[in-house]
């Protein structure tokens, strides 16, 4: 009996890495995350899309790094000791780094802890979000990974 219960829970939950960007907390589906690395020297690529900060050397691989702040239309990144680059691994397109202010924790959310209706298409920032996760008192905006990797830029 007990075992069965565990299985059922596992099926309907997902783990998210909770990161801080500005004053808000965002969640990234752990399935997409390959790696989290400390901030390092980013080589600027001239004439690239503005939200691409440049490229880094990740153990011999060249990985482009994106500023999610620029893409979402927020203030510029301020790099601190807590800044991290989340390396996302996306099928067919390879690795992509996303700069975040801080990595907080990993949470497990079940589907009924996620509010999908709070997302409206009108809010520009919401385009990158597919739901709001409720972890105790804290609200976590869950990133829609495909929107992040999409060409589209927030005006």
């Amino acid at each position: 009996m007990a075992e069965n219960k565990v299985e059922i829970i596992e099926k309907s939950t997902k783990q998210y890495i909770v990161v801080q960007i500005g004053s808000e907390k965002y969640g990234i589906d752990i399935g997409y995350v390959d790696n989290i690395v400390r901030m390092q020297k980013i080589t600027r690529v001239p004439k690239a899309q503005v939200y691409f900060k440049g490229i880094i050397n990740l153990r011999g691989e060249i990985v482009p790094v994106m500023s999610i702040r620029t893409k979402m239309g927020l203030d510029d990144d301020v790099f601190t000791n807590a800044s991290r680059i989340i390396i996302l691994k996306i099928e067919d397109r390879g690795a992509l780094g996303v700069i975040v202010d801080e990595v907080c924790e990993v949470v497990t959310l079940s589907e009924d802890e996620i509010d999908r209706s709070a997302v409206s298409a009108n809010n520009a920032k919401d385009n990158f979000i597919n739901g709001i996760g409720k972890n105790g008192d804290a609200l976590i905006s869950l990133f829609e990974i495909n929107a992040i990797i999409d060409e589209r830029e927030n005006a």
Partner: protein
Amino acid sequence: MDVSQYLEIFIDESGEHLQTLSDCIMTLEKEPDNKDTINEVFRAAHSLKGMAGTMGFKRMQHLTHDMENVFQEVRSDKIQVDSSMIDLLFECLSAIEGYLDNIKATSDEGTEDNELIIKELNDFIAKAKGEAVESAPKESAAEEKPKESDGSFKKFELSDTEKKTVAGAREGGSHIYGMTVYVEKDCLLKAARAFLVFRAVEEFGQIVVYRPSSQDVEDEKFDLDFSFYIASTEPLDKIEAAAKNVSEIEKVISLEIEEEKTEAAESAPASTESKSAAAASAPAKTAAAPKAAAPAAKKQTAGKPATNRTVRVDIEKLDALMNQVSELIIAKNSLVSISSTEGGNFASQGFHEQIEYLERITTSLHESVMKVRMVPIENVVNKFPRMIRDLSRTLNKKMELVMTGEDTELDRTVVDQIGDPLQHLLRNSADHGLEDAALRAQRGKPEVGNIFLNAYQEGNNVIIQVGDDGNGIDTEAVKNKAVERGIITPEQAEAMSQKEIVNLLFMPSFSMAKKITDISGRGVGLDVVKSGIEQLGGDVEVKTKLGEGTTFTVRLPLTLAIIQALMVEVRDEKYAIALGSISNIEDIPVKEIKYVQAKEVIHLRGSVIPLIRLDQILDIEPREEEPESLTVVIVKRGDSQAGLVVDNLMGQQEIVIKSLGKYINGNKLISGATILGDGEVALILDVNTLM
């Protein structure tokens, strides 16, 4: 049977066999009596048939089977190779290529039966049979359609060696019996049944001739019947009974083969069940001649192609290996940079020696891996003679392709992509380049137009020259056309050099063809060639002389993965410039900069070179005050030059080219990135787009 896992191998190997066929048929056209070639052609056709059969591609099998029949006749000197036959064979090859393309695209051979070609092939054989006195055309037709056979003994032609074997057996006092065995339709293990039949009859004598060959029978490469000649001293009905004893054998037809076997075949219409014509005519005295076995065995082994000492490797595995070697080189580079910068701690001689040793090993490892990836351009260019031959027919111009340096090797990725541009250039030569016969005669040129393709290595590049001894490019006509199309103004046209005019041909949608032909002239011409070659990091140049010919020179890098580069600094950013595109480096005092049309140029040893400020085009903060002299890296592309202004030169280095990935785009200035010894990332400037 699920054969999908073999599909790739099948496609690969079929392609190879087709190429062999095409090559050999080209050779045959020139030397119709070349026995080796004929044998090779036969082998290739035979393997192709077998493979198609195994994979269940019935139509393809059928076509190759009939083609093989023709080769069989050629091999046994029944048919002389002539030009109509060569044409037909090439049609066949095209049809088979069609099947193969279908298979590649959809894993299915498609529904085209190519009946016309098959009929023509059979007509060919029938005609040849008619000429060959030995048998009536009617019978040979029946022979070509085994399915229609009514269960008679199948007559077949013997090769010379087989004739000798038969004669040898006869001299030994044996009778030669011919037998055709029909296997039941729903028999599952035909080959096994055949084996049992062979074993049963071999108790009585020696099988001297197999149809199809014993190898094919073993491989189940026969429909429902197979035939053989057996030399035996026993009476025929005994042998026949033994053969019939094997289960799942529908019937056995047999007859004794007389000395004049044509007579025997005709006089013995071999009724269904064994009313064998000359059953036990002469009882034997001695046992079957043992020497008969030897030549028969020899023939079998000759049929098998020699095995190559090569291994097929998935290109992805090679790429992975290459990547790992690249990593190793990067790691080595960083060790080198540590040892030189922090010399204090690592000053021991042993450490330096080991570093040097490591350097040697990585360099040779890198070379070896590169060599593995190198393939001769032969794989691409060897389809061209055939193409030129076809073009010669369609254009009705006499021409000949002379190729040299087919063994020149290039990186696999380059070779894979160079085919189309080269093909395009050759078609251009054939169509636009060569004049028609009358004009050639008038100009005193040989009747047969000469098209050439020369490949050779030059430093870190491979040069491929494609050209002709034809008309050359009429620069006046090009100029007029360009003005007419509004690409340039008449004034501009006047000021243009010959070279610039010729380069107009590389503009998109610029075709000189007066009428659109099958071959070229659709306006997607040289610009495609140019961009294709540039994508590979190469370039193309034209030399032409009106009335004498045109030569296109294609220059390609040996490899795409690792290059020698000059590292430069602009402010605090590091960039790599491929050494191959640098002609020289100059220190230019600022006051020597001149202006032409408000653009900065320098005048250097007679040539005027435009200056490109890297900091400006790369969006780097400008310097607060200009130094007195500039470091200028002069780069070249073809004959054009440009001077890149940099802050600092860091030196030459072997760099591993890495792609920027699929996310960052709209960036033509940067062709990739590389990782330096200290782990830092430097961008590689694409000089071609700067000019």
